[in-house]
């Protein structure tokens, strides 16, 4: 790939890493605080459904992961399996889309709908 594309991917990797670092910390802290004393699935959904803040936060989280993971995998596939070139990049683009779609579906399930 050209220097332009490689640099764009590098910037996307760096930026998504920064977002992920923030999101993972908030996510873990929320879980730890929320489950103190035990929680059932129904109780979780009762709290999350309709939360705009939760929806925005986890949508960002999912999109950052969908950008970050395939770029990292791209290097791993090239270095470990010697798989480089357009076919690899096309498969990874599909992988990124799959991560985004599945992740957003989960976010919609947990945070969408009426409170």
């Amino acid at each position, binding site marked *: 790939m050209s*220097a332009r594309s*490689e640099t764009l991917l590098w910037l996307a990797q760096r930026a998504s890493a920064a977002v992920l670092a923030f999101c993972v910390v908030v996510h873990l802290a929320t879980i730890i605080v929320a489950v103190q004393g035990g929680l059932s699935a129904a109780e979780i959904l009762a709290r999350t459904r309709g939360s705009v803040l939760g929806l925005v936060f986890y949508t960002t989280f999912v999109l950052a992961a969908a950008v970050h993971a395939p770029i990292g995998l791209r290097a791993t596939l090239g270095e470990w399996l010697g798989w480089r070139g357009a076919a690899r990049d096309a498969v990874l683009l599909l992988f990124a889309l799959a991560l985004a779609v599945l992740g957003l579906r989960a976010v919609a399930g947990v945070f969408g709908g009426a409170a």
Partner: protein
Amino acid sequence: MALLRVKVWRGAEQGAFQSFEVPRQASQTVLDVITHIQRHLDGSLAYRFACRVGMCGSCAMTVNGRPRWTCRTHVDTVAEDDTLEVAPLGHLPVIRDLVTDMTPFFDKWARARGQFSGARSRHDDFARIAPDDADRRQVDAGIECIGCGVCYAACDLVSWSADYLGPAALNRAWTLVCDARDAANPARLRAVGGDAGCHACHTQMGCSERCPKKISPTAGIAGLKRALARALLKGEL
């Protein structure tokens, strides 16, 4: 007299270690040991050196598993139980015994546009660059490279990605990116920013750990990434 047991690689890509016994001397270097073997024990041993004082970069070999410059590596600091194992430098084709073919290494310097290309002629005045200029300091940090290939042999990424330009070529490119007199720069950044260029680096500093000149190619590579990002945002790539 104390003896050193030395195993030396013989052959090319295919070959085997041959054992020798070499008398220990005070302040003996690994290159002294190899020279003793070639002069006194087996004249057919092929190896390479020139300056013997850490300037020419021709004597690097794998000593007890690690790439090192042999002329300035004292036996005392590397021998384990009075034994040494000396093999050719890694990640390069072996010509014979301890001599590697450095062609791929230096071809990558050329691919990284490691040549200075100035814009001034003999009729122009000298460029005046202050000693404390920030870019000049970056150049100073990387310019003493002797082209020994130790960092290249220490870089795992070279073994996984045969095309990877490698720490020395990228360090060289960085010294030119920071050189105010050089006129090839957006093109050089394009040359080091592709598939096999600086973005592939894992930033784990194997190269910097091993460089005998205490250069940090990793820092230069990070500088190239920043320079490429800036050039991209300015629309120069």
